[in-house]
């Protein structure tokens, strides 16, 4: 897919909970090869948007196209094929507690491909290495890992099917600043290396400045403003400028 083409294309998305409209005609484009940051206040519908993009939730109206293919109302078989091209990193890692690290990583390979277990394990070890982990963690269980390691294993699992799109929900939440900066750098490095398109929800200003090509601000059920972080942080829209002023002062206090 050529750079600049839109990999995810959302048009007129409506998500309602009862009377409450979380998304009200939301339009969003994620272009091939970019790292897009998704920000917005609490309750702005960031997580709901991610869930809708992953087809974990059916929207009330609107269209979502991945690689030009409609997701809303697609059959299970189409969805399964589409999902193999999307990697997802959940906020808490969502590693399977009953499986050790290597089995967590090879599970999708065993389910969806006929690869021999030797190759599946090699691929898992490559992904662990990419995620900056020692191979010795392979036989540990999730409850034996630290918070930073859980994120890295979860990233390795998100990459196991060699997806074209990577979706990250608050990748650096709960990490200390040093670990968070290293994780941001890792995401940038991997996305360049593997030619990934990345969509990430984050509240971390450092991450927004360091790693994103473009940032989208979600508010009032729509995209209020979008652009590179330096223009967005100078935005004249009250809600957006308040968000950035607030974050900055808080970071300064820290």
């Amino acid at each position, binding site marked *: 897919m050529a750079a600049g083409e839109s990999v995810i294309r959302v048009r007129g998305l409506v998500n309602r909970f009862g009377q409450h409209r979380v998304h009200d005609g939301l339009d969003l484009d994620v272009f091939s090869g970019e790292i897009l940051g998704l920000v917005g206040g609490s309750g702005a519908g960031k997580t709901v948007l991610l869930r809708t993009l992953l087809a974990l939730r059916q929207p009330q109206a609107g269209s979502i196209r991945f690689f030009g293919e409609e997701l809303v109302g697609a059959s299970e078989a189409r969805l399964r094929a589409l999902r*193999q091209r999307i990697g997802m990193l959940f906020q808490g890692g969502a590693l*399977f*507690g*009953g499986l050790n690290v*290597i089995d967590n990583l090879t599970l999708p*390979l065993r389910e*969806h*491909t*006929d*690869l*021999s277990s030797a*190759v599946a*394990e*090699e*691929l898992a*070890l*490559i*992904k662990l*290495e*990419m995620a900056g982990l*020692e*191979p*010795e963690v*392979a*036989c540990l*269980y*999730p*409850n034996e890992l630290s918070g930073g390691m859980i994120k890295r294993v979860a990233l390795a699992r998100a990459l196991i*099917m*060699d997806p074209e799109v990577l979706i990250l929900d608050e990748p650096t939440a709960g990490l200390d600043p040093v670990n968070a900066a290293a994780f941001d750098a890792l995401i940038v490095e991997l996305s360049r*290396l*593997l*030619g990934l398109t990345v969509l990430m929800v984050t509240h971390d200003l450092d991450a927004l400045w360091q790693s994103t090509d473009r940032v989208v601000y979600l508010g009032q059920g729509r995209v209020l403003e979008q652009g590179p972080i330096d223009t967005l942080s100078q935005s004249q829209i009250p809600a957006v400028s308040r968000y950035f002023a607030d974050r900055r002062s808080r970071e300064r206090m820290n």
Partner: protein
Amino acid sequence: MGAPATVQLEGQSLTCAGEWRLPGVAALEARLEQLSLPRGRLEISGEALEGLDVAGARLLHRLVSRVEAAGGEVNLHLCEEHRRLLELAARVRRPERLHEPRESFLSEVGRVSWEHWWEFRGFLGFLGEVVAEFARRLLRPSTARPRRFLNELEQGGVRAVPIVAVLSFLVGLVIAYQLSTALDTYGATVFLPELLTTTMLRELGPLIVAILVAGRTASSYAAELGTMKINEEIDALRTLGISPFDMLILPKLLALIFALPLLTVLAGLSGMLGGALVNWAVHEQGVTAFLQRLPEGMSYRHFWLGLVKAPVFAAVIALIGCRQGLRVKRGAGGVGQATTRAVVQAIFAVIVINAVFSIIYNLQGL
């Protein structure tokens, strides 16, 4: 999606084409393994590749290393991007061991027996701890939590009333039917009430209640405490200066010890009611006749002998449930395992203790 991944071998040259990406490239693995590679120099051309990912690159890497291991030489024609991926896919560092070595049958038998032995010792240890803590609490009654106790009493006792009543009624009914068929043969149906008291009041009543409560309550204790453990709620209680023992274990234990004898009385009564119904339907004897047939001293004795067992069952069930819950370590799957273990162990313990009681009663001539 691009063309499917293909590979073609002609003499000394191998051509890779199509999209070498997951999931399609996986089908190629077996085909690559079967290729009879020529000796000497192999030209691999990948200019026709439409796509390559890490999985595809790894398969290619395996092919290259196979040729090189056989003493051959490889000349790769790849674009810059694919060459970089190939380098990436070559980096596999293996840990010393990836899987637990599979153990032999004998060592598994040994390990499992050892584990059961330790499980038993662990239970005794937990019992000792609880008794010690409880003794200390007796000196300071102000630590008691009546509200928690009542709450547990409702969950474990009151809510079990309908199922205990119905099931023991049915068991009494079935036992009475079976007994009366056998007694009919000897024309001894008048002994039905007496036999019923022994079975229902002394044996089956307490056992049915204990097994039901083991299934209902031991599992719920294990699941509740296990979930609290993995959510760090138990640690949170400790840091707030609240003893999890006072807050969680003691109310559960006492509530069950209080509730089980009452449930046992209920089970005995409704079992006898079932028997009386059969007596009336089959032998056309009314309830008063049934009651008159009950040997007075005897049935009191059976009643008390049955009732004595109930608090012991209760303590064992509550302790097993709590202990399994507190031992949970590994996430949600651990809670499931703990719940299963709690129910299995509780029912096992109840039946074993019941047998021990029978032996003791017999030796004492009761």
